[in-house]
Every structure is written in structure tokens, then in C-alpha cells.
């Protein structure tokens, strides 16, 4: 196709330019084209009950529960290049009569090095009167690089004390708003 398409189209383009003109336009502006979509995406959710903080075998309290999930999209090259800001939104509903400390630690995949960490306190509720705690965190500027180096998040939920009579549940729903620049 080398001898067919491109040179001839180019020749015609040149011919067109000779007998006409393109005015008042600046095609260099193409360099300034930036897509800035804002994407809402669900993150993690869980539903813990008071019993989960009691070891079923020993019946002793387990004060800290911990779980990990990979978030492999975070550190892929697309995310690293395009995420400019991330707004985390965590919505806790607590009907356990205890305050909780909840910690989110983002880890780098290869050696589990911590790159970004945030934490909040969830207020106590009762089975009759569950309490909502909303925690929002904005990550932008230089710290966004810390976030997009991570590919896992470890969630730790710590209860100050627990016993078998404790009732209620702790629910988390969460999402992230990603501000992209493409």
C-alpha cells in the first residue's frame, strides 16, 4: 500500500491547500486536549457481628480483626498516570455498644511495604439505635503517588473490649471518587 494510499492522499491534501485555505484554526491545540472524567466506584464492604470478636474455640475476645484484599487496578500504569485525586467515602453503621478503631493500610504488592495509611474512629451504637459514622478522606497532590504505588489494602477493625454477651453489628459501605486526567 506504500505506493498507493498515503502519498496520494497527501498530494491531494496539498492540492486542496493550494486552491483553498484553512483559516483561523490552530491544530496545535490538540496537545491541550485533556479528558477529565470523574469516576465513582464501589470499594469494599463488610458486615461484622459482635460474635466475630469472640474466638469460637477459646471463647476469648479477639480484639482486632484484620482482612486484606488486592486492588490490582490501583498500581497499574493507567491508574498511575491518570489518577490525580481520590476521594474515599466510608459509611459505617454501628449497633454494637463499643467504639471501634478502623485502620486502612495500603501496601505495595511485592514486599508489603506500607505506602499510604488512614484511620478513623467509629462511634458506638446500640442494637435499638444504630449510629452512623461517615469518614471521608481526600488524597491528592504528592500523596496520590503513594496511593497508586499500592496494590492491596489491609483493613483492621479494633474493639476496645468484648465479651460473649455483646450484641449488634458493624457494617461498612464505601466508595471512591477518582478524578482522572487522560
Amino acid at each position, binding site marked *: *500500500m506504500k505506493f*498507493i494510499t498515503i502519498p496520494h492522499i497527501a498530494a491531494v491534501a496539498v492540492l486542496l491547500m493550494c486552491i483553498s485555505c484553512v*483559516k483561523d484554526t490552530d491544530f496545535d491545540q490538540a496537545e491541550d*486536549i*485533556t479528558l477529565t*472524567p470523574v469516576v*465513582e466506584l464501589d470499594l*469494599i464492604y463488610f458486615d461484622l457481628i459482635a460474635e466475630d470478636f469472640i474466638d469460637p474455640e477459646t471463647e476469648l475476645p479477639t480484639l482486632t480483626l484484620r*482482612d486484606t484484599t488486592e486492588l490490582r487496578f490501583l498500581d497499574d500504569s493507567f491508574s498511575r498516570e491518570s489518577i490525580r485525586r481520590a476521594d474515599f467515602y466510608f459509611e459505617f453503621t454501628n449497633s454494637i455498644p463499643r467504639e471501634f478503631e478502623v485502620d486502612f493500610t495500603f501496601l505495595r504488592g511485592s514486599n508489603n511495604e506500607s505506602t499510604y495509611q488512614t484511620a478513623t474512629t467509629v462511634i458506638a451504637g446500640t442494637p435499638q439505635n444504630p449510629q452512623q459514622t461517615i469518614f471521608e478522606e481526600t488524597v491528592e497532590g504528592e500523596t496520590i503517588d503513594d496511593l497508586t504505588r499500592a496494590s492491596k489494602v489491609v483493613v483492621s477493625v479494633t474493639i476496645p473490649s468484648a465479651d460473649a454477651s455483646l450484641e449488634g453489628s458493624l457494617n461498612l459501605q464505601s466508595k471512591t471518587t477518582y478524578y482522572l486526567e487522560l
Partner: protein
Amino acid sequence: MRTLLICLFAFWGGTSIAQNKQLLYGMDEVPQHLLLNPGGKVSQKVHIGIPLLSQLHVNAGASGIAAYDIFQENAGDINDRIRTAIFDMEAEDFFTATEQLHLLDFGWRARNEIYFSGGVYQELDIISYFPRDLAILAWEGNRDYIGYPFDLGELNVSGEMMTVYHFGANKALTDALTVGVRAKLYSSMIQFSSTDNQGTFVTEVSEDGDNIYRHRLIDADVSLQTAGFASLQELDGANAVTSELLGRSLFGGNIGVGFDIGATYDIGRNWTVSGSILDAGVTFYGKDVETYQVNGSYDLSGIELIFPPLGEGEETIPYYSNLEDDIEERVGLDTITNGYTRLRPLKVNAAVEYRFGLPVGSGAACDCKNLNGAIDTNQAIGGQLYTIFRPKGPQLAATAFYYRKLWQFLSAKATYTIDPYSFSNIGLGVVADIGSFNMYLAADNLLWYNNLAKAKSVSLQLGLNIKIGEDD
């Protein structure tokens, strides 16, 4: 994505509908008018197109947008203008680019008075409708569109590069009626299409669900057919790709067959009607075929952590891999290598012409024998209709024209064409016969030539032939 957008906007130019050669249709002086109507009148005895120069046709266009709309100077941020354009355009708007280059062209009148003609041309044809919802999703994201169903069916794009070998016959059956037919062999070099898509994507607030939103892919059925791409990926370097494609232009790729038919009928001395059907054909894609397909529905609500009790060093549940596997299983990308067939984009032309003014050419001499026969005059007016059948239905254009033979060696035709996208397309074509050389140049959208950037389409045909008339 950015590159894709730039490419789309680069196809400026298209209120004239692709492949409408309204200036050349009916221009008997140009031998290549037989490719627009194999049943057109033929005035010469022999013609030979200058290889690579007998006809070049290029057309690029976009309905609903011109390059100027995006790239004008001193008008603020280009991104604001793109955003406005995205919201102003409809899903029926389209971008097209077509190109035809004749490699070989010849014709001769045999003793039985049949005019045989044949040749080879190479064609590129790309059309993309504007996937408005997907453009909004890419440009804005989903934050401001919670609950809005994005339509995946708006994705509609197809393109092909092929070489066409053709041979036709044309005969005046009576003094009034000329008919013709042309057989075509298509040798496809590259083809891709993604046309019959459906499905929606919506992010909705989950009232009683597990998490804040539900991201739903509903009844998705999106596919991309390709022929001739898979093997190119394995080739190394531009030269290897070039020689592979050249090989395919000589029937090394996928093959198709088709035909053109047409007729011209004179009514009395001054009126003529004509019509043609072009590219009634089909291409069979069996070689080097890959179809990529995504099919199914999926609801995503994020990742649920269940905090399993773990011993020392024990790994937790691989939530993310499980999610990926689940998505892969339910709506995964399938690659299919089954062959498929596609109809060629059918084109239909119809025209009526009224001649007046001074008699010219051989017509005058025949008058005494054929008192009711058609005469050639130096002026004519008429109307033409053109339709091309595209994935989302036919695209129609109507043309009014004025023809004038200025001197024996020079004719011109002016056209005014309307279609659903433009009411301001004026074109001009000029044909010169100098000795045995036949030259022509035709271009439309002339009103915009003082600033091409404001034109929504650009279309140009030019060519050079050697033509030997009946008297030579």
C-alpha cells in the same frame, strides 16, 4: 482515548455523503462515469486510463461538526468546545473517510457494438457513527450520571481496504436505450466492523444492596469482527506489513463477488432518465478472521471482606482474583475465528436530465434519420438522487445540476446537493479533451473553500485518460 478523539475530529469535512460522485455521474466525457452507471452513454471508441492517475477520489467528512468548531483560534479552552460538541452531536452523526484510486482502467468498442471496459481500483472506506453515550462517559465519567443508562449499542464503526477488479459490458440496445452490467471481484486486504451492538451500563444507588452503588452491565452484546488484522500483528516492521498487504490485493486475502447494473433511456429529443445499482455484492471472510465478543450481564458492588479466622502465615481469601474470574466467566472476552460474510454497501443512483440550447456533436447529423431521437445540446439541467446503504440505514442525497459544453473541448457541470446534514453544498466539475488526452477535476463544498476548516466535508475527484473518439 485522546488519540481516538483527535482522529475522530481529524475527519473533518462530511456533509456530503461518502462516495456520492454527483459531479461525475452522467458526465459522458469522462470514461470513468461507467463506474457510476455501467449503462451510461459511451461516446469514445477506446479509452486507457493513465495508471494511478485515471481516477483519484477522496472524501472525508463529519455530519454535525467541522474542524473549525473544535480548532478555532482565540476562543477559550479547546476542551470546553469539545464538550459542547459532544453534547450537541447525536448518535446518528457520523464520521467518514473514503478514498478510491484507479490503478488500471481501459475500455474499447468491439465489432458487435458492445463497449467493454475493465480495470482495477483500490478503495478505502471507513465510517464511524458517533457513540455519544460512550463519549460522555469517557469525557465526564459516571459521577454526574448516577442512574443514567449508557447505551453501548451506539458503538458502530466499520472500515475496509480492498482492491476491486472489474469488467463490464455496455450496449445501446436501441436508439433510445443503453444498458450495461459490470462484474466485480473484491480482494479484501483489511476489514473490521462493530455494528450490531447492544447493552447498557448504569451506575445506580443501591437502596437495599450490599454497598453504596451497583455498577450494572445489562444484556451486553458487543463484538468486533476483524479480517486481516491478526496475522499483521505477528509481522515485523512496516515493510513486512506492506508486502503482506500487497499480496492480499492480488487475491491473497478474502474474496468477494458483486455486480453493478445500469441503464439510460432517452424520452423524445430532450429528456433522458438513467439509473444504476452499484456494488450489489458480498464478501466472504474466512482467512485470518478474529471476532472479539463480550456477552452477558454483571452487577458489581465492590469487594466484600468476610474476615475469615486465619492462623499464623495463612493467606486470606483471594477476593480480587475471585472477582476477576467471576467477571471473566460471566462477561469475558471471547475470541472466535469463525468466518463470516458481509454485504457490500449498496449504492443506488437515479437521474433525470433535460437538454436545451444549441445542438452539438454528432447528434445533429443524425437528426434527419432519427427525427424523434435524442439530440446532444450544449446545455442541460437535471436532478439526481444518490443512496448508500449504511449500517444504520440508507443515507440519501439529492442533487440539482446544470451542464454546459463551453467549447468543443471543454465541458463543465455545476451541482447543488442537499442531504439531511447540509443545504449548502455547491460543486463544480470540469472536463477537458485536448487531443487524445482527457482530463477532469471535480470538487464539492466550494462555498467553504475560502476556509476549508469550516466545511463539514471535502470531496475531490480528478483523473487523466487517453481517449480515442469515434471520429479519430
